């Protein structure tokens, strides 16, 4: 179970629309409680795939380290990654699976003709054979309930 509040979810959608027709990407920082995890902040990153940014994204080892440092500074953990699928469903591709790491949550937002639509989350199985869907619990942002 991945908890995302509506403000953070909207920000991911906005990044997907902003970067359309290219893929957007970034890190999700939060807390991992074993049974579930919650996204508390985003750390947007530059898609380093200059050669094919419309259907690929890449986050370098240096960017990974920067995301880890940011998480540590905020007292959070690096719990996953978001990216967009321009004009493609919010389902992991075979390319996503081949390049995935276990444990992380992979959030995908579909962006159809520039408009963000579905958002899903996935985790790689321990044997690398498949991505498993991860339930998303939509929450309200902190302070939204007075």
């Amino acid at each position, binding site marked *: 179970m991945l908890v995302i509040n509506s403000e953070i979810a909207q920000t991911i959608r906005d990044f997907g629309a902003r970067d359309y027709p290219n893929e957007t990407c970034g890190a999700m920082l939060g807390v991992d409680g074993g049974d579930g995890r919650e996204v508390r902040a985003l750390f947007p990153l530059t898609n380093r795939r200059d050669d094919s940014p419309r259907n690929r994204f890449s986050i*370098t*080892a240096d960017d*990974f380290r920067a995301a880890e440092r940011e998480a540590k500074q905020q007292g959070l953990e690096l719990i996953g*990654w978001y990216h967009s699928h321009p*004009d493609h469903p919010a389902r992991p591709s075979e390319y*996503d699976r081949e390049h995935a*790491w*276990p444990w992380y949550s992979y959030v995908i937002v579909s962006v159809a003709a520039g408009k963000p639509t579905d958002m899903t989350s996935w985790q790689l199985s321990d044997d*690398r054979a498949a991505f498993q869907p991860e339930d998303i619990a939509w929450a309200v942002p902190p302070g939204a309930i007075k």
Partner: protein
Amino acid sequence: MAVKLEIPTALRQFAGKQATVEFNAATVGDALKQLTGTYADLRRHLYTDDGRIRSFVNIYLNDEDIRYLQKEQTPTKDGDTISIVPSIAGGARI
């Protein structure tokens, strides 16, 4: 020579939940071989089926990417730290 291996969060579940492990190893490849020999479930995440380090797995000896050293044959010395640092990739099927 005792070298320290840093395991990324994503792989700790396959390494007894440890953040670091130590081995006596003469090269980076030797240390990695001992790591995957001790924790066999790590192997599929670090290596392809034909035994090459996966493209999105970055191995650093201290602060140097071993691709710019002697790759897996890079010699180690006592007190060195080997880090496994992920890069992240993916994208829509087209």
